[in-house]
């Protein structure tokens, strides 16, 4: 099943930031969103993840198929790496966390408290969470922040594995992950025309 977006408009604080956006993401493919800061990538990803309502347009094949990861990883510093990961696995009714530990090179850190990890290690743990959701569509907002070159390569490898297994990924990132399966989509042309927010519009 594809993730399909038709004529989508998304709004931040009631003000449309992107409009007229359409794309389709097939299993095994990745789509990289590009655009300067403030162009609405985060808002678009949050909307597709179902965290905020779409301003206009349709989204198909999202909902319960989305695994979302943003700037905050939702890690608990007083839980160990394993406990953090196992918690999310249980929430998503999965049991096996070993592949995730392997894929993101978290072996040897299993019993460390998440609070004692370095920024890059925390980020890797946050991304490992994606693998224990068992969901096919990864929606990732700047996933490579605070990752070093080796970790970026490892992350790209994990994404490649996910795509090979029939999953798909929608990413907002500035780094070239070297994914053959990826297409790029520049969101700049879809910048919404300047206008007042919907709330304010009622008063004009």
């Amino acid at each position, binding site marked *: 099943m594809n993730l399909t977006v038709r004529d989508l408009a998304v709004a931040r*604080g009631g003000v449309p930031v992107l409009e007229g956006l359409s794309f389709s993401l097939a299993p095994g493919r990745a789509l990289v969103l590009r655009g300067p800061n403030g162009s609405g990538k985060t808002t678009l990803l949050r909307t597709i993840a179902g965290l905020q309502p779409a301003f206009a347009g349709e989204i198909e094949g999202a909902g319960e198929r989305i695994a979302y990861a943003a700037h905050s990883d939702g890690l608990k510093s007083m839980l160990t790496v394993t406990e953090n990961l196992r918690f999310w696995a249980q929430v998503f009714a999965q049991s096996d966390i070993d592949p995730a530990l392997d894929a993101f090179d978290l072996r040897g850190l299993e019993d460390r408290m998440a609070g004692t990890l370095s920024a890059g290690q925390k980020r890797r743990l946050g991304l490992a969470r994606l693998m224990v959701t068992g969901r096919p569509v990864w929606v990732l907002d700047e996933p490579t922040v605070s990752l070093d070159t080796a970790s970026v390569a490892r992350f790209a490898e994990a994404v490649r594995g996910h795509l090979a297994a029939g999953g798909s990924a929608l990413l907002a990132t500035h780094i070239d992950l070297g994914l053959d399966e990826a297409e790029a989509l520049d969101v700049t042309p879809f910048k919404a025309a300047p206008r007042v927010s919907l709330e304010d519009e009622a*008063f*004009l």
Partner: protein
Amino acid sequence: MSIWEYANPVKFIRTTDRILPWVSVAAVLCLVTGLVWGYFFTPDDYRQGSTVKIIYLHVPAALMAINAWIMMLVTSLIWIIRRHHVSALAARAAAPVGATFTVIALATGALWGQPMWGTWWAWDPRLTSFLILFLFYLGYMALWSAIENDDTAADLTSILCLVGSVFALLSRYAVLFWNQGLHQGASLSLDKEENVADVFWYPLLVCIAGFVLLFVALVFLRTQTEIRARRSRALLAREGRT
């Protein structure tokens, strides 16, 4: 033509602009007539003396303190169901007015209680209920002012108003159970034999009408102010963006 047309901010302002002067004049007339009549042209009560005259302020204020909350409940429901901005703003506009009426009811009650019960304050169920109602008004207004995004604030305060109404009702029964109280029964009711005498009753009715009109006028005025404030912000936002 539907009543929802008045939910349009522009239409609301235009209509209330026409009505407002009349309502205001009528409110002043009723209040002056009712209070002068009540205070200077009614006899003293044979038991309570001249202190009874506080009812011309106390009863209408208490009545409107409750009705203002009920009005907020209705407008909150309209906002939740139909999402008319004017409705949410009217609820916001009514809250301080209702809170003020609650304070008037409490203060006049205390003034009357001192000579009659020998105390400024007693933990009587009615007095206590009004104190609790005042706390609900405070919480409602505090939530409105704490949230920056207007629509979010309207959503959250509406739900608080619904939940608060249920708990206010519960508190009323709890307080009744907790202390049987000194307060006399309702002074006004249509089906009861025992009622205030006609000579006090007519000026009281005029005062109540005055308070109702005053409430309507204040809410119209304050809602207009809220709408204009939102409008000016919207205009500024448009200027800034284009």
